[in-house]
């Protein structure tokens, strides 16, 4: 490991004090002069033709400035498959479909106006189960695709398939085989700050939008396309990202409410703000997809995995977002967690009349790992092998290439598993107590970007000012995860300045260089690498300038020094001769000659160099840019091949639980999380990422489910949708970071944002099984499910022996 000045040290996040003082400005807090409030009228039915929309009463309400529907506005099409419209035209396909919208002088008037809009529908047969949506006679959600070509089924035209080796042969070679079906529910991101935006046009028809987004530049592209749809071709959108209030994937797409705010702003020539209420957020923003995974795995008599077959069916809901590409990530654990010689993977997504879904932290990986790691424990038991030993036996290795073509560089899975086993007391676990048990689960995730677009790049610009402040312009989004603290550390480290001289500018497409978006645990990885590239360029420029300016400046230093210390004898050192660009170094904001004697005057403050460069004839300014695109590949998802990330994060988590057999309640006694993070960049920030992910993993495992009844969300509030509170997190958590010093990572680091919740649910489920012998296959593991399984165990005998 290298020695660092700033990397690995606790570095305060720059937005911390403002957030602590209530001064950080979220979309909810922003105001523009003359700003109107937009509100959306959502569909009253899950599937229906729109016959007539009567907006006359709403239009007459004092304070209303505009009422829009598909009839009186240009058509704006969006969505991953371009299957969605900002305002629905002919029919509605889900309860949350946007049929009309108003802009009014205050939120109350806007809400009142919405209630005055009357919609006539012709109800259509609906389908809410993905299995039923697959049937031949199922109602068609989309009769045509975006190009107008007829469709005759509800399956999305997206193929995800992988085949390596011969899984039938692998099955024949297996001595032990276990099959199971596992499901996961709809889950909401639950950002504490709800979704919203402010759209405003200038009189040149250029748009500024303050957006709660994780993809400012892709959003700019989407919105520019919308401007074209509105007859404003070649006009530009400037996307400004305020303090985010959480993202967790909810900002990976552009949303109908944003296009509606744009339409309303143009219609009224006034800024328009739309902010979702919590109920709207639950019922009208896209959650994580529900999934069903059928998995079958087998191993030989020695416990070596011989094959794996995985089939996934996902309920996509009525329209597509980028969430329709979840299987691109599911494919990764399905093909590459543990060494498996023969694999098939298939995923199918279907349209239904349920709420359409989008990205959420982990992006398919928690869903797939839930099935895979539960099944691993079942297979270990079938084979009579300890689950820890079973994982160790089949674990991934450094520098291997997996069947999907993932090129693993460093791999700390062995150390992670051993750490979890050690911390849980795995080998000495006897007499844990009645109804107590322990379990573990592993993970693989992208750790070096994730190429799901053609580009996986991140641009970064450094600009030095007169006072040697380093202004950083970067297009990645700080959503709370601590990106900007890591960016400050990275710039300070790579450039050779103090962190308090590094300033991160607000995220703004008008000023920041292009970045593909903050997702796939890529933020710190990309920003760090881009910072290193840009800093190296800037150092070259600084040293080039120093050749010319350094000797005279230190000469002045020496004179001053001599004035104070008349007896001082300067060392015999030819400064002019030594002032060569390749001999300079810059550390903590001072330029010096590497092999020069360490005299206090024989160095130069960076600010002086820059001032000298500015205040002269033919002066120059010092900036540097970098566009980092990691060495990974856009996989061929139909073949299931391609090195999607430049490095991979591994980890293992363990849980000890106690099950109350009277109530079915699961109490977590402790958690252990061991993660191969490559290199710890900012310890408090990293811990916060893993602690927070664990809480989301626990919510996923035990509590959270967005209940949908015939397409309607039944629990759109925090009373009925439970996320962990302080009481649910009341147990010791042991975090262990394995540093593998990855050659692709900035300073050796891998991405860490998502891995923390990937194996949590199966680790808990495996512990529950260890405790009371019931295997729950459908998340969340509610007391009702545990009780009913315990009941079944009593009547059916020992479930442990069943395949």
């Amino acid at each position, binding site marked *: 490991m290298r020695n660092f000045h700033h990397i690995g040290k*606790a570095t*305060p*996040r720059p*937005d*911390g*004090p*403002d*957030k*602590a*003082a*209530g*001064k*950080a*400005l*979220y979309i*909810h*807090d922003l*105001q523009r002069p003359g700003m109107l409030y937009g509100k959306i009228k959502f569909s009253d039915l899950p599937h229906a033709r729109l016959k007539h929309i009567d907006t006359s009463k709403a239009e007459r309400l004092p304070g209303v400035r505009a009422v829009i529907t598909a009839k009186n506005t240009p058509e704006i099409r969006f969505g991953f498959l371009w299957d969605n419209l900002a305002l629905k035209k002919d029919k509605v396909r889900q309860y949350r479909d946007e049929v009309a919208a108003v802009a009014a002088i205050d939120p109350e008037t806007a809400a009142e106006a919405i209630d005055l809009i009357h919609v006539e529908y012709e109800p259509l047969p609906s389908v809410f189960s993905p299995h039923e949506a697959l049937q031949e006679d199922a109602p068609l959600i989309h009769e045509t695709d975006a190009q107008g070509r007829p469709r005759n089924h509800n399956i999305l035209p997206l193929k995800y398939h992988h085949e390596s080796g011969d899984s039938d042969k692998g099955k024949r070679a297996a001595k032990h085989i276990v099959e199971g079906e596992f499901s996961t529910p709809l889950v909401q*991101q*639950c*950002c*504490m*700050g*709800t979704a919203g935006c402010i759209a405003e046009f200038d009189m040149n028809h250029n748009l500024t939008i303050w957006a709660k987004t994780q993809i400012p530049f892709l959003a700019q592209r989407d919105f520019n396309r919308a401007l074209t749809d509105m007859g404003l071709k070649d006009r530009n959108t400037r996307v400004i990202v305020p*303090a*985010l*209030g*959480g*993202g*967790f994937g909810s900002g990976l797409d552009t949303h109908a409410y944003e296009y509606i705010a744009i339409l309303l702003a143009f219609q009224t020539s006034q800024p328009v703000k739309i902010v979702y*209420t*919590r109920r709207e957020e639950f019922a009208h923003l896209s959650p994580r997809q529900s999934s069903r995974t059928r998995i079958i795995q087998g191993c030989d008599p020695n416990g070596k995995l011989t094959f794996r077959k995985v089939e996934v069916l996902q309920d996509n809901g009525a329209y597509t977002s980028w969430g329709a590409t979840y299987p691109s990530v599911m494919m990764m654990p399905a093909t590459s967690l543990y060494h498996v010689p023969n694999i098939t993977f298939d995923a199918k997504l279907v349209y239904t009349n349920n709420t359409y879904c989008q990205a959420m932290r982990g992006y398919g990986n928690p869903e797939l790992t839930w099935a895979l790691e539960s099944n691993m424990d079942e297979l270990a038991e079938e084979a009579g092998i300890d689950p820890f030993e079973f994982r160790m036996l089949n674990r991934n290795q450094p520098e291997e290439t997996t069947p999907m073509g993932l090129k693993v560089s460093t791999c700390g899975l062995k150390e992670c598993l051993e750490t979890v086993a050690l911390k849980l007391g795995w080998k000495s676990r006897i007499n844990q107590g009645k109804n107590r048990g322990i379990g573990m689960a592993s993970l693989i995730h992208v750790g070096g970007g994730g190429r799901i677009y053609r580009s996986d790049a991140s641009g970064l610009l450094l600009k030095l000012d007169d006072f040697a402040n380093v202004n950083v312009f970067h297009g990645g989004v700080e*959503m*709370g*995860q*601590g990106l900007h603290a890591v960016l400050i550390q990275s710039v300070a480290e790579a450039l050779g300045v103090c962190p308090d001289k590094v300033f991160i500018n607000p995220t703004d497409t008008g000023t920041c260089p292009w970045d593909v978006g903050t997702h796939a645990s890529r933020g710190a990885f990309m920003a760090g690498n881009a910072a290193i590239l840009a800093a190296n360029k800037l150092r070259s420029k600084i040293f080039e300038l120093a050749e010319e300016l350094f000797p005279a400046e230190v000469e002045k230093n020496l004179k001053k020094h001599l004035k104070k210390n008349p007896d001082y004898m300067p060392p015999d050192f030819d400064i002019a001769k030594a002032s060569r660009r390749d001999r300079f170094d810059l550390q903590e904001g001072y330029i010096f000659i590497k092999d020069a004697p360490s005299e206090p005057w024989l160095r130069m403050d960076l600010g002086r160099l820059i001032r000298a460069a500015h205040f002269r004839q033919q002066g120059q300014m010092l900036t540097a840019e970098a566009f980092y695109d990691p060495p990974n590949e856009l996989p061929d998802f139909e073949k299931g091949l391609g090195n999607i990330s430049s490095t991979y994060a591994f980890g293992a988590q363990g849980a000890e639980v106690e099950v109350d057999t009277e109530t079915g309640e699961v109490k977590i006694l402790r958690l252990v999380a061991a993660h191969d993070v490559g290199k710890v960049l900012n310890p*408090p*920030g990293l*811990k*916060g990422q893993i*602690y*927070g*992910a*664990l*809480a*989301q993993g626990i919510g996923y495992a035990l509590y959270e489910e967005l209940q949908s009844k015939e397409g309607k969300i039944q629990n759109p*509030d*925090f*009373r009925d949708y439970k*996320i*962990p*509170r*302080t*009481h649910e*997190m*009341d147990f010791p*958590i042991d975090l262990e970071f394995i540093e593998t010093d990855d050659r692709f990572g900035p300073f050796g680091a891998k991405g860490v944002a998502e891995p923390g919740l990937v194996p949590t649910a199966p680790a808990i489920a495996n512990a529950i099984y260890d405790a009371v012998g019931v295997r729950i296959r459908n998340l969340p593991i509610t007391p009702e499910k545990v009780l009913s399984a315990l009941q079944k165990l009593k009547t059916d005998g020992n479930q442990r022996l069943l395949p």
Partner: protein
Amino acid sequence: MKKTITFTLNGTQINVAADSDQTLLDILRGALCMTGTKEGCGEGECGACTVLVDDSAINACLYPAFEAAGKSVTTIEGIAGTRNRLSIIQQAFVDSGAIQCGFCTPGMILSTKALLDTQPDPSEAEIRKALSGNLCRCTGYVQIIEAVKKAAARWKEKS
């Protein structure tokens, strides 16, 4: 019907017009433009809008504005000292890595203040109880609880 109400806000007496159906949160974020207090749910379930009324932590989104008349209200804007100095609690949150997206932070800090004002040396169970009405989606609460402990310890050291 709008009515002028008078109350003490962060130590200063103010008059503000309010409707009978408005909440204290509406008045703070609306008429008074004090956006430090956040609205996370509007239904008293998340604690993002926690403020102190006569030293008790309440959800401003449920608290009728008229009820505040004659009382003393403390918001996040009233917690920091002059000359941009963070209070002990705020600094402990910053130092403990207890802040991520920050949306729950003002409410967390006010709930912490209500706790430490009555119980300067709280047990972990008391801390968890005091913060049980404040939801956070980013941190898993671990570093928030550490921050409250740190604040209590620093307070003790100082007094």
